[in-house]
């Protein structure tokens, strides 16, 4: 019997798992995909917003600002990469300046710790490629960028380190309540039992709730956003995140520097029917391309290396839905966690445990909780003397596999065998960045494939890209059929 089963290992499920691991609980996280952070958490702008935008006195406003602050502590404890770049909201005329002023006031009410209005002349000093049509900006220095799936990995690894279990490829197919506990069926076969269930299933959180509830107080309205990725070698093109004025559709098409140097352009915003629709479209990307130049000059569209779409778990409510089920005690829902979900995540986890679950009433804190996670070795970023030392111990740090990003064999092997390891091309890409660069894996995918096969003692024919069924190869040649 578990104390808690968490369903969903995106950023929300992972960070809740970590919070839970501070208590003496028996808990497991179930994830239907073949990896942590494989859906929403993998496809967003990666921004930790300042909290200037949400409607005051909403959970979104409260937790955005609090979450932003909590990331400072998370950065130190988990050694996650954070780019402290700040942001500008860009206005081009008197009308937009009025709107900017409203945002300014909103930031004040929301208790955003730092913000100020700057005119173009001042703003352009620290942002030389700022659009020439800019008249005024709202500067938001506490805005940051992170690597969302690495945050999720870090939280989940730390949670596992502190005793939480994790199972991937585990789709919840049924939830029942009997004798004061829940019975969760996984993949139509295995049954697990738990005193409490935490629904952190993202776009599927309403479907999951409907497995047991008659009337769930929220439903998901999936909203797609498409992005371009610009090669990191244009680093320095912009220094801040650039926002346009927000509209009802959302924050708009942004320009966002990423922690490794790439620039994201996007997203657009489109309500869709199919939750699993991750396709990019001409219209979507056209929209992004048309709106981005309002923010900056000389956008290097010719350096685009990738485009992708992400789905937001927007809901019919304008705020986060975080609460206990009205029908079943100890079933907790996290519904409609769209933007600023990533920013608010640390605060959401604390709120859920302390205010909703009231966990301290039932469980003691662990006295051996270890909050720390060692920094992942990004070999190419180390100073030369450290590199030489490490190579002496592990010569495979000398074997460059991904030439574009300078990722070494040792990093890849470690990513395969780590506690939250992966044996897929995509899993290795997420953990090490091999294949994320200019040639998008053209050079290294074959090498990564061979290392995976070697390290898992399997045939290269078995190598999967993402889900176990997504194999790269169809057949071997020269084999009689």
């Amino acid at each position, binding site marked *: 019997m578990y104390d808690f089963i968490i369903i969903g290992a995106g950023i929300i499920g992972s960070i809740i798992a970590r919070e839970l691991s501070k208590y003496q609980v028996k808990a497991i996280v179930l994830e239907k995909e073949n990896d942590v952070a494989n859906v929403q958490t993998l496809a967003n702008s990666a921004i930790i917003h300042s909290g200037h935008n949400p409607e005051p006195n909403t959970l979104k406003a409260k937790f955005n600002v609090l979450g932003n602050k909590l990331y400072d502590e998370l950065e130190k404890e988990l050694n996650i990469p954070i780019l402290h770049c700040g942001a500008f909201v860009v206005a081009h005329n008197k009308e937009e300046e009025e709107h900017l002023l409203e945002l300014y006031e909103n930031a004040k009410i929301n208790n955003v710790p730092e913000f100020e209005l700057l005119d173009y002349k001042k703003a352009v000093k620290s942002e030389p490629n700022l659009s020439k049509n800019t008249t005024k900006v709202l500067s938001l220095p506490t805005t940051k960028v992170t690597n969302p799936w690495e945050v999720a990995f870090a939280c989940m690894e730390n949670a596992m380190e502190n005793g939480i279990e994790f199972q991937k490829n585990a789709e919840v197919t049924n939830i029942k309540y009997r004798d004061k506990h829940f019975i969760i069926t996984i993949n139509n076969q295995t049954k697990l039992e738990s005193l409490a269930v935490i629904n952190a299933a993202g776009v599927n959180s309403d479907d999951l709730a409907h497995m047991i509830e008659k009337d769930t107080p929220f439903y998901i309205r999936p909203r797609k956003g498409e992005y371009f990725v610009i090669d990191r070698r244009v680093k320095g093109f912009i220094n801040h995140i650039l926002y346009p004025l927000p509209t009802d559709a959302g924050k708009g098409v942004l320009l966002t520097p990423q922690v490794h140097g790439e620039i994201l352009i996007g997203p657009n915003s489109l309500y869709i029917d199919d939750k699993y629709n991750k396709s990019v479209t001409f219209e979507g990307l056209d929209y992004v391309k048309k709106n981005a130049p309002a923010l900056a000059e000389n956008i290097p569209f010719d350096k685009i290396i990738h485009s992708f779409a992400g789905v937001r778990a927007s809901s019919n409510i304008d705020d986060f839905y975080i609460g206990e089920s009205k029908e079943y005690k100890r079933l907790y829902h996290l519904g409609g966690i769209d933007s600023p979900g990533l920013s608010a995540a640390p605060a959401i986890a604390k709120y859920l445990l302390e205010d909703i679950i009231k966990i301290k009433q039932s469980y003691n804190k662990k006295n051996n909780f270890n909050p720390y996670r060692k920094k992942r070795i990004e070999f190419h970023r180390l100073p030369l003397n450290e590199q030489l030392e490490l190579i002496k111990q592990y010569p495979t740090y000398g074997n460059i596999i991904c030439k574009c990003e300078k990722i070494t064999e040792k990093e890849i092997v470690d990513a395969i065998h780590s506690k939250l390891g992966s044996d897929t091309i995509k899993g290795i890409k997420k953990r090490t960045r091999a294949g994320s660069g200019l040639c998008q894996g053209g050079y290294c995918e074959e090498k990564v494939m061979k290392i995976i096969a070697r390290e898992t003692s399997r045939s290269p024919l078995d190598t999967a890209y993402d889900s176990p069924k997504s194999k790269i190869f169809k057949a071997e*040649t*020269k*084999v*009689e059929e």
Partner: protein
Amino acid sequence: MKKKFICIVCPRGCHITVDDDGTISGNKCIRGIDYVKTEMTSPKRIVTSTVKTIFKELPRVSVKTDKPVPKNKIMEIMKELSKVIITEPMERGSIIIENIMNTGSNIVLTRSCMK
């Protein structure tokens, strides 16, 4: 009726025309004439492929027919090649199948295998 060909003997790809009376024009060298004549009667091609080896460091090694072979025998030749397994080191140019499918052409290695 005029017949039009693109010669494939070299990367130049001369556009060659054959008139009703058999006059050949458009070729930049004499090989084009032979090509077109053969192409009209029994088209031939060089076949390049790979064969399997037992060597982990070199699981496949590239091969070719050392002479052009009839176009209509290509798929049969491919089938024969899929039965080959190289089990010992061999030099580039080694013949691994003599007179494949009775075409008068041999299958030769186009690179050395573990040598």
